[in-house]
């Protein structure tokens, strides 16, 4: 990593969980966040333009009210006193009502337009981030953990939602009020106006201090909440193990520590606000005192009217109130900024297995798999596959055996392109997998593993997962073929039975059968079974194997199994050790020879003979 340039080093999610990043990097991150926000807002340019108009109108209307009040006091009252009637006063009051109405209408328009933009942006962001997570490689997910995926898509997105909903409103209103009020003050009376605006540099300094401090504080808040979320989700997902092994006290201890860190981070940012907000208030109150004294003196000398003084007091209140909103806005901005930083980082992560720019069409895959000089390693120093050349003709059933860690699973993961080789090529029907688009590849290659994830929904939904348009008859046929039909029909509701949270009410074996049915229904050219029968009892496994004979006819299959019983349906056996194929041939020939496979086979026979 030392030689990599800074930019590359901090690409993607690298900056997460870093407490302080170099200045240059934090600029880079901010730039990235800004770019994302820009992209998200761009489609709404016209709505934003409308928003600007509405906001300007609303503020002009709002700002005119104290001015009209001053006018009323200075011209309306004297006219009344002189007995010239209510005319002027009524006109002014009418104007105030008009201004109030205009402000109300524009305000409502503003809330609607900004609300719509905010929700549109959120929806788009949700879609984008979700889609991107789904595209990222398994190795990314393994490192990133699902807890963080969840916190990106929930609390981070919601932080941004808050910015878009409340934050913008606050900021836009505050800035416009600030500028508008300043202008009005100077128009009303230059001297008094200058006195009223004298503390502006102080305001600026205070705001800058607050912005810097709260940036750090909020980053910390987001980090700590992410840790709370990760721990929470993980311990709830693994609650069974936690309870069985009396892990609860330790879990509680860890959780309370993380929770305490989160509390401390929150309290810190809250305390920053506790200093900043009253600070602003103090500046405001001092200014009001100054204006009262100086303005009073000017009024006494008849240099300003009482109406102007009244307007000043009204305006000053408007002037400092939004400053509070600005600091509120910084809160939301900071949390949204930190969230945006991470979300843009996720979006920047390159999908480990990139989609080809010019995909090669492969309408009907035959299923010939070739490994040409393939090298693979998860970490650079530890090669998993040093150099693999392998030719699997279409339609062949290959069993891969070998000790744990021999590289069997890596081979099949390369075929299903969960990873790309470090060097060399994996080909399907002579086409490099990297040249196939995902849809084509997934239609052609399907893998069943020992982890059988069931999604919430019905049993039928789960079997249809790979082919959602399959008619019920096909679903039942697939389930029947693997022997899952009897137990499914026994469920309350049969195929329409809800599987519950991650198939909680089914046994591991039942879930595996459903996963099998799912794979068979998908009807791929290449079917990969990675320890897929390990949870089945012997009769079920036998049933599955019998089904395999028919199902695998005319299909390429790669089967990893520890039970050599699976080997009987294989045309060919590969024995792997240390990432290399050490024996290769039809099973009976390997048994007849006296290599490793023969040894394994003898050991297996012995384990069976134990059963009598």
């Amino acid at each position: 990593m030392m030689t990599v340039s800074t930019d590359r080093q901090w690409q993607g999610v690298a900056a997460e969980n870093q407490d302080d990043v170099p200045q240059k990097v934090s600029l880079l991150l901010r730039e990235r966040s800004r770019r994302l926000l820009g992209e998200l807002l761009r489609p709404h340019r016209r709505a934003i333009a409308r928003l600007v108009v509405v906001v300007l109108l609303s503020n002009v209307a709002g700002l005119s009210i104290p001015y009209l009040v001053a006018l009323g006091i200075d011209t309306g009252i004297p006219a009344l006193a002189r007995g010239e009637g209510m005319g002027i006063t009524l006109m002014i009051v009418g104007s105030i009502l008009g201004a109030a109405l205009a402000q109300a209408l524009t305000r409502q328009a503003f809330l609607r337009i900004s609300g719509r933009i905010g929700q549109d942006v959120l929806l788009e962001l949700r879609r984008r981030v979700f889609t991107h997570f789904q595209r990222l490689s398994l190795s990314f997910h393994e490192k990133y953990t699902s807890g963080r995926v969840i916190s990106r898509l929930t609390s981070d997105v919601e932080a941004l939602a808050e910015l878009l909903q409340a934050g913008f409103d606050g900021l836009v209103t505050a800035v416009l009020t600030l500028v508008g009020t300043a202008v009005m003050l100077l128009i009303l009376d230059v001297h008094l106006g200058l006195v009223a605006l004298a503390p502006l540099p102080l305001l600026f300094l205070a705001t800058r201090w607050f912005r810097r401090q709260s940036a750090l504080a909020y980053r910390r808040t987001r980090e700590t909440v992410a840790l709370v979320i990760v721990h929470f989700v993980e311990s709830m997902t693994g609650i069974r193990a936690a309870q069985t092994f009396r892990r609860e006290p330790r879990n509680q201890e860890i959780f309370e520590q993380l929770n305490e860190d989160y509390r401390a981070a929150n309290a810190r940012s809250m305390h920053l606000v506790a200093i900043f907000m009253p600070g602003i208030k103090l500046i405001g109150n001092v200014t009001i005192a100054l204006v009262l004294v100086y303005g009073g003196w000017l009024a006494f000398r008849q240099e300003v009217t009482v109406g102007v003084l009244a307007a000043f007091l009204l305006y000053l209140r408007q002037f400092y109130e939004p400053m509070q909103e600005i600091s509120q806005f910084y809160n939301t901005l900071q949390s949204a900024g930190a969230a945006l930083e991470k979300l843009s980082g996720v979006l920047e992560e390159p999908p480990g297995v990139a989609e080809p720019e010019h995909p090669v069409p492969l309408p009907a895959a035959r299923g010939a798999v070739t490994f040409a000089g393939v090298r693979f390693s998860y970490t650079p120093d530890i090669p998993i596959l040093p150099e693999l050349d392998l030719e699997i003709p279409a339609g062949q059933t290959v069993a891969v055996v070998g000790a744990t860690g021999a590289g069997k699973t890596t081979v099949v993961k390369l075929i299903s392109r969960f990873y790309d080789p470090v060097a060399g090529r994996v080909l399907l029907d002579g086409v490099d997998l990297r040249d196939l688009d995902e849809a084509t590849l997934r239609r052609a290659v399907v893998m069943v593993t020992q982890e059988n994830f069931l999604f919430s929904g019905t049993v039928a939904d789960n079997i249809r997962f790979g082919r959602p348009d399959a008619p019920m008859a096909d679903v039942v046929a697939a389930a029947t073929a693997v022997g899952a039909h009897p137990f499914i029909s026994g469920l309350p509701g049969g195929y329409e039975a809800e599987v519950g949270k991650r198939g909680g009410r089914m046994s591991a074996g039942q879930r595996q059968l459903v996963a099998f049915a799912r794979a068979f229904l998908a009807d791929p050219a290449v079917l990969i079974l990675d320890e897929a029968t390990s949870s089945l009892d012997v009769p079920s496994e036998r049933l599955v194997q019998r089904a395999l004979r028919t199902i695998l006819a005319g299909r390429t299959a790669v089967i990893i199994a520890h039970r050599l019983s699976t080997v009987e349906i294989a045309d060919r056996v590969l024995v792997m050790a240390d990432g290399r194929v050490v024996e290769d041939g039809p099973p009976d020939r390997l048994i007849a020879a006296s290599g490793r496979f023969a040894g394994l086979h003898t050991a297996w026979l012995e384990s069976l003979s134990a059963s009598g």
Partner: protein
Amino acid sequence: MSADDEPPSAPSASISLWRLRSYLRPYVGTLIVAWLAAILSIAASTVIPLVGREIIDGPVVRGDQGALLWLGALTLALGVVEAFLIFLRRWTQGFLVFGVETAIRNDLYAHLQRLPMSFHDEWQSGQLLSRATTDLSTIRRFFGFGALFLVMNILQLTTVTILLLRMHWPLGLLVAVSALPIVYVSIRFEHRYTVLSRQVQDEQGDLATIVEESALGIRTIKAFGRRGHVFGGYDEVAGKVYRTSMAKVRLGSRFFTFLEVIPNVTLALVLLLGAAAVAGGGLSLGTLVAFTTMVLQLAWPVAALGYILAMGQEAMTAADRVMEVLDTPPSIVGGPVVIERPRGHLRFEGVEFRFPGADRPVLRDVTLDVRPGETVAIVGATGSGKTTLTALVPRLADVTAGRVTIDGQDVRDLTLPALRSVVATAFEEPTLFSMSVRENVTLGHGQASEEEVRAALEVAQATFAYDLPWGLETRIGEQGMSLSGGQRQRLALARAVLGHPKILVLDDTLSALDVETEALVEEALRRVLADATGIVVAHRASTVLLADRVALLRDGTIAHVGTHHQLLNEVPEYRSLLAAEEVV
């Protein structure tokens, strides 16, 4: 816990929130300081315009220069005091609100850890998470600001209105009357807003659930290339959230605007009538200025009232959702008994188990006596209830009839820590946490020595852990994803055998191992099981041979018990379950 003594009557939203008040108890002192500071700061800010009136009516109109400086100094002093009081309130609240939030979250977590598997099987962790984070923040915001400002604003509204009434009662009355439509609309708005808030919250929970599934099931999704399908489901719910949020935006935009327009209209009327009064000599100019300033001062509290009510509504629904979890009784709680020197005599007596609402029991009339040191294998077809049977021993689920005893004590009478230190289970699907290998293995035995850990890893043939990049300190990913299935199973097995449990439950723990490793593990397990009572769920003859006796489970009840060879010779069903697989 907040209020265990509350009767379990139909929990209305506001009651849920009220019940959380006990969390404020440790902060009573802080609370008093914060509220006092708030009240005093409002008093200070109310007085400032009155001083302004004195300046206009005194020095300006009558030309009293000395008073001008004096009143100016008073304004300054009031301003400084107000700022300090605001500081005091916010500073103390920083401790208070986050302290309360943290305490509730800790309790929620503790409660969730106590709730049985039956609860966790039903509840997605995404739903639980949104309660522990989003909902608690909502409650915190209300406790911290909402409740305070609700009272402050009402207080400010009343005092200012009273002041105005005293300054000039017709104008004061006008201001007071103008508050009526606001109150009326607020109450109506409140109800509709609640419904929408709850809906958004629920939909966001659903969205979180989909996110969770999509992250945990990523391998399956990728294996079938079903991104589009999963996205479709996600997008549908995201669209729902969008539409409900938009409805909320529309409702809010009408209401908030209404709240802002009323004070301005009032101001116009005050000016109209006030001008007439000043001209008629019934009102001083300074009073009119003070009046208008104070009417504008009311604008914010009135407008904020709407936000606060909305916040209160959200807090109530959030509290409801939190209490929903906290009110779920932990149906599996320990008894008082600790077995001092457990022998490990395990008995199932007429055990029945059925899922709530299911018509057929999963287990019925299971009676089995496992003597200390004996190992019994449980054999049965897929779905015959084997895993459920094993879950009853460490009380991951409770029998619905009959009982399970250890050394003659009903497991329900034992304390949970005592029970679960006597019983250790290795599941077929090993759950590994994202922490070091060592922590994963010593899950229940934080104090385990280096030798004990090594011994456990050796029994489970999991010494590969020493060869990981950082040895036992290597962090393994969530669910141990970076390890193979077999490796994970072996670590989970090491976890179970660590600390020599008296009763060892192995639920098809060796299924993902290759034959050679399995043989080695079995060899080592034989030694462990020699001085432990064992329940071994088995699919393979080789595993069955670890046991002294075999119980054949059929349709949720024990059909036969005997030695492996007896059953093999006498029971055809058993033969078909375990007989030699068709040899090549």
